[in-house]
C-alpha cells in the first residue's frame, strides 16, 4: 500500500493553524456582536411633523370671498385680490404646495376634479409673488397617470410653471398626525416640506357626509389604508384638518357635482355655478358651501362643530367677514 504522505514543515503548520484560528475567532466575534443586536423588529417611530401654514388675520380684510363670473381664472384672481392679494399669503422664496382634487379619472366637464384653470391661475399668482417652487400634487384614487392627464390639471399646471408630481411609493413618510384618532400614517413628503399650502378642492356630493369640500381634500395627502377613515369620518376629517392648517383655501364651485359624487361621470350630475369661495377659515368655507349648494345645516355635518371646538375656525359663516361679488 502506498500512501500519499505530505511533508508539512513546522512553519507551514503554524501558519495554517493561525489562519484557521483567526477565521474561528472572527466568526465567534461576529456571532457575539450579532447576538447582542437581536431585538424584536418594531416599525420605525413616526416622526412628528405638525406645523401650521396659516398667516396672521387682518381685521380690515374679509375672511371669505364669494366671487361669481364667467372666467375661472379671473374669478381666482379676483378672489385672491379680495382677500388682500397673493402677497399677503406668499412670501418671496416660499415653497408652495397647491393641492387640487385630482382623485378621479374624469375630464373637467365631469366636475370630479378641480377646475384646471383655477389651479393654473393659483400657480401663476404664487409665481408672481416670488415663490421659489410651486408644486402641484395629489394622491389619486384612480390610476394617477390617467387622473393627472385627463383632469387637464397636469398640462395646465405645467404650462403655468408648476412642478407636477405624481406620487411615488418612495415619497411617503410615516408621520405622527397627533390627532385624536389618527396617529401614525404615511404622508406624502411634499406636504411636510412646504412653506405654504393652498387647498383647492372642488365641491362635490358625497354619500357619507353629504358633501366633500375643503377638509375632505386632505385625504389626498395620505398613503396607506385610507379606506378605513370612513368608519369615523368626522373625527378623521378634523384630525387631518388640524394637521395641515392651510394658508388659503379656494373651493372650486365653478362646476359642482350635485349627485353621484365623488366620482360622478354623468354630465347631468354637474351644475354650473360659476362661483369660487375662497378664504382663510376652512371651517366657515365648508359650512357656507354646504349650506349654499346642498342646503345642509351645521347640525347634519358634525365635523364642522368638532373642528370649531378644536379651534380650526368657525362654522357660523354668517358672522365671518364676507365679500360677495359678481363680475
Amino acid at each position, binding site marked *: 500500500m502506498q500512501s500519499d504522505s505530505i511533508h508539512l514543515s513546522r512553519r507551514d503548520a503554524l501558519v495554517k493553524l493561525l489562519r484557521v484560528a483567526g477565521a474561528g475567532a472572527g466568526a465567534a466575534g461576529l456571532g457575539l456582536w450579532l447576538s447582542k443586536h437581536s431585538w424584536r423588529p418594531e416599525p420605525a417611530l413616526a416622526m412628528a411633523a405638525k406645523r401650521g401654514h396659516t398667516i396672521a388675520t387682518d381685521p380690515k380684510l374679509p375672511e371669505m370671498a364669494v366671487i361669481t363670473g364667467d372666467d375661472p381664472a379671473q374669478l381666482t384672481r379676483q378672489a385672491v385680490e379680495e382677500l388682500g392679494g397673493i402677497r399677503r399669503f406668499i412670501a418671496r422664496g416660499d415653497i408652495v404646495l397647491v393641492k387640487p382634487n385630482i382623485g378621479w379619472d374624469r375630464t373637467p366637464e365631469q366636475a370630479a376634479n378641480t377646475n384646471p384653470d383655477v389651479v393654473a391661475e393659483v400657480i401663476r399668482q404664487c409665481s408672481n409673488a416670488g415663490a421659489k417652487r410651486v408644486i402641484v400634487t395629489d394622491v389619486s384614487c384612480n390610476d394617477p*397617470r*390617467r387622473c393627472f392627464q385627463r383632469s387637464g390639471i397636469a398640462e395646465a399646471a405645467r404650462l403655468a410653471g408648476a412642478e407636477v408630481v405624481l406620487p411615488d411609493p*418612495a415619497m411617503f413618510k410615516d408621520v405622527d398626525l397627533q390627532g385624536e384618532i389618527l396617529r401614525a400614517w404615511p404622508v406624502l413628503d411634499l406636504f411636510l416640506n412646504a412653506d405654504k399650502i393652498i387647498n383647492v378642492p372642488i365641491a362635490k356630493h358625497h354619500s357619507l357626509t353629504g358633501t366633500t369640500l375643503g377638509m375632505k381634500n386632505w385625504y389626498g395627502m395620505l398613503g396607506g389604508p385610507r379606506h378605513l377613515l370612513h368608519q369615523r369620518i368626522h373625527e378623521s376629517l378634523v384630525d387631518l384638518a388640524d394637521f395641515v392648517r392651510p394658508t388659503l383655501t379656494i373651493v372650486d364651485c365653478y362646476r359642482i357635482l350635485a349627485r353621484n359624487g365623488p366620482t360622478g361621470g354623468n354630465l347631468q350630475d354637474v351644475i354650473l355655478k360659476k362661483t369660487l369661495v375662497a378664504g382663510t377659515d376652512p371651517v366657515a368655507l365648508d359650512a357656507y358651501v354646504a349650506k349654499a349648494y346642498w342646503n345642509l345645516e351645521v347640525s347634519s355635518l358634525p365635523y364642522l362643530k368638532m373642528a370649531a371646538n378644536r379651534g380650526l375656525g368657525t362654522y357660523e359663516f354668517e358672522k365671518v367677514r364676507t365679500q360677495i361679488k359678481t363680475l
Partner: protein
Amino acid sequence: MRFPKPTKLRTLSQIVFFFLFLFLLLRTEFRGSLTASASEIRLPYPVSLFFQFDPLVAISNALSSHALYRGLLWSMVVLIPTMFLGRFFCGWICPLGSIHHFFSSFISERKRGKQLIDSNRYKRWQTTKYYLLIASLVAAVFGTGIVGWLDPFSLLVRSVGLSILPATNHALRASLGVLEHSRYPFVQTVSGALHFILGALLLSFKQPHFRLGIWLGLIFVFLVALNFRITRFWCRALCPLGALLGIVSRWSVLGLVKNPEHCNDCNRCLLRCQGGDDPIGGVPWHQPECHLCLNCVDECPEHGLRFQFFPGQKAVGVDLQRRKVLTGLAAGVAVVPLARSTSGFATERHERLLRPPGALDEEYFLARCIRCGECMKVCPNNALHPAFSEAGIEGLWTPVLVPRIGYCETSCVLCSQVCPTGAIWEITEREKGWSVDVARADKPIRLGTAFYDRGRCLPWAMATECIVCEEWCPTSPKAIYLQPVEMIDATGNSKQVKQPYLDPSHCVGCGACEYACPVQDRPAVYVTSVGESRSRTNQILLNRRKG
C-alpha cells in the same frame, strides 16, 4: 470603403430588432403625459407591432376565425420573402432567436471542441417543431389559439413582460431605495440621477405583479439555459414559427453552394452553425433548418461555401416521418374536443372568469387569444393576469381580471388597443359606455356583477359606517345604493349606519368596489362573471336595462 462582413451586418440587424422589440415592450405601458390633456388616451407607439409581422399568428387567426384581424396582413412581409430566401427571419430579425443566439455563444464544459461540432450536426429530433406546428394549426381549425403557448413572440412578451421585467423593476427599485436612503448626500444625488434615467428608460410607473409570474420566468430561463448544452435548442427543435418558415422555404431560390473539392474536413463550418443544417461537405444541406446566419461562409478557411440564387445543388427538404405527422394531426384534432368535454367551458363556468372589456364571447375569445400577455402588460391597474385554471386547461395564460389586485378603469380601453388578434376587440371609451347612465346606454360593456358578503360587510355585520364601495362605484347613477338603518351596537346603543345594496341595472362589473373594500383579505363585495355582456347565456336577469 470595404463592404462590412455579412455576419457583422447580421449581428447589427439582430441588435437593432432586439432593441426595437425591447423598446416596444417597455412602452407597452401608459406612462401619462404632462403635455396632453386629451381625454381619449392611446399609446404613442404600435407596441404589438411584432405580432403583426408574425405569419404563425396570422395563419392561426385565419384558421380559427376565418378572417384576418387588422394588421395581421403585414405578416406577408415576412412570409413571402421567406418563400424566396429561406429563414432569414430566424437568423436576422427574431428577437427570441437573437437571445438564444447570444446565450449559445458561451462555450460550456459540455459544449466545446468535438462535442460542439457533433452537437451542431443535423439531428432527427429537430423535426419535433414541425409536428408541434401541425398539431397547433390543426387545433386552430377546431377553434383555439393555443399556438400562442409556443409562438415565439407570445412566449417572449409573456415571459419578459410578465416576469423578467417586473423582477428587474423590483431589483432596481430595491437597490435604488438603499442608495437613496444613504446618509451621504453625494450618494443620494447620484442615485437620484440614476433613478431619473432608469425611470425614463426602464422602470415601470409602479411595481407590477403577475399571477404565475415566477413560472413564466422559470420556463423562459430554462429554455435559455438549454443553449448551454445545444445551440439554439428552442429554434431548432421547438419553435413552431421556425417550422412554418422552414416549410415555406422549401421552394427558396437562395441556397448554399458547397465546393467539395475545397473541403478538407476541418469542421469549422460546424463550430458556429446556428440551425444544425449540415453546411459541411459530403452530406446534403438541410435547407429548412438553416437560419441564414452566414457563419459557415464566414468561417470556412478555404472559401468553399457561399450562398447564391439558384444554387443548382440538391438540398434536403423537411424531413418528416409519416407516423409522426399522423400523431401531430391526431393530437391537433383531439386537443380541443378533449379540453372542451371537461366541465368549465360549456357548463360550470368559473365564477371568477372575468375577461377584459371588449373580450369576445368565450368560444370566439379562446379561438383568437394567443396568450401573449400584451393586455396584461399594458393594463394601468395591473388588473389582468394570466389564468391558471379559471378558463380550463385550454385557457391557460389567457387574461383574467383580478379585481382584488386591480379594477377595470372606467375610461380605459388600452387592452383592446394592443390585442394583436382581436380576442379583445378594439373598442372606444364611448363603446365601453361607463361614463354615461349605464342603464340607459345603448349596449354598455359589462364584465360581471358585484355581490355582497353581508357577513363581512362593516355596516351589515359590525354596525360600522363605511360606504367606500359606493364612493368608488364609477357609474352614474351609481350601481351601489345605500339605505340608512338603525342598528344596535355591542354596547346596546342605537346607531345609524348606511348599508350598501347593488342595482344590477347599473353594475358593469368593473371591480372598483372589490378593489377598494377595506376588508382586505376577502372583500365583502366581489365581482363574478354572471351578467357579462359578451355572453348571452351567462345572465341572471331577464332584462337588465331600466327605463
